[in-house]
């Protein structure tokens, strides 16, 4: 009998533990999931496409969400391109984005994901806290050197990545925390996982979101 109960418990635990992570994320702790990689240029363009579709090309919502081209160009050596066609940087981290723009992205993403997965639990995306980043750093352990681009000194996010591993917390770009002006994690200039500070968009600064399941 005890064996039966323990087997049943294991089965229940298995199903409880195998909740499907919200899109783009891996499990962090409790009801928290974190993006596998930084938000990429493709994902930012997806956001712009939606804004254009919803509010129009001349709307402030669309225009105010375009990354700072000077910052973006400083890193990628070419102008930011809204196009998905012949764009060589789709899977690299988006830079030139302000704290407010990043926050708006997370809010927008919550709306889209909840709309698509209406029958699932509600998900809220937001920027991570420093503590959440520290927890995530302990989980990051995969070697993905084949995606390294020497010219850019950046890693490209592999498309359709599968698996419960985190990417690029200690390299690529540092990432905004939920506190305005504060960033965490290493970047192409400074690999230390110390706190870093910014006043405006920087070429070494990107972001990823935390998904909190209600």
């Amino acid at each position, binding site marked *: 009998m005890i064996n039966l109960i323990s087997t049943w418990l294991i089965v229940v635990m298995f199903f409880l533990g195998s909740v499907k992570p919200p899109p783009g994320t891996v499990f962090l702790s409790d009801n928290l999931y974190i993006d596998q990689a930084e938000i990429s240029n493709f994902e930012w363009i997806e956001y712009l*496409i939606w804004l254009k579709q919803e509010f129009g090309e001349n709307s402030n919502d669309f225009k105010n969400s375009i990354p700072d081209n000077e910052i973006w160009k400083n890193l990628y050596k070419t102008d930011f391109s809204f196009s998905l066609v012949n764009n060589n940087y789709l899977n690299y981290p988006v830079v030139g984005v302000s704290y407010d723009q990043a926050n708006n992205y997370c809010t927008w993403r919550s709306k889209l994901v909840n709309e*698509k997965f209406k029958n699932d639990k509600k998900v809220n995306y937001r920027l991570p806290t420093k503590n959440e980043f520290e927890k995530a750093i302990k989980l990051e352990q995969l070697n993905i050197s084949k995606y390294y681009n020497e010219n850019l000194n950046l890693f490209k996010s592999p498309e359709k990545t599968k698996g419960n591993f985190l990417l690029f917390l200690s390299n690529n770009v540092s990432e905004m925390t939920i506190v305005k002006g504060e960033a965490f994690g290493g970047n192409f200039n400074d690999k230390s996982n110390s706190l870093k500070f910014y006043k405006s968009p920087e070429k070494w600064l990107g972001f990823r979101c935390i998904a909190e399941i209600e």
Partner: protein
Amino acid sequence: MIKDYTLSKSDTTGWWVWTCSDGSKTGSATTKKQAKKDAKANCPVAFVLDPPDFNAVYTDGSLMDFTVKNLDLVPVQYTTSDISEDEFDFFFGLVCDEDSDCTTRAQKAITILKFWGIYNGGTTEPEIKTNHDMSDTDFQRIIEKDYIGLHIHIDDDVYTWTFPE
């Protein structure tokens, strides 16, 4: 038909993003099906035109009805009130009856355009040329069925005909 758009699933939202291959338009939708539909409705279309497959039913020697596969390879059913037996014969290279006037140049063009599913109206030769952005040479080559390897690009009802050299 040449696929003139690409679909990508966003890993971060689960939505589908479509973009025309020429980069002219983009959009997103919750499902792949809807994204595909939106892309098809918004992206310029390119066709490679070849004679379509057909299947005809004759009763007592007269054509009754027939199906022809369109450019999406979907069989479309026609009756002889849609496309006359003469037009059908012309298109598929069959010989007209001796007592028939066969078909006019305009009817020939209309027949072909209807089979391809890209007919955009017009009953006279000038009207057909105008409605389909055809030059005299384009028109002539089409009615002579000299169109193997022909590409047509349609964007916002603007037709671009490219014949092989």
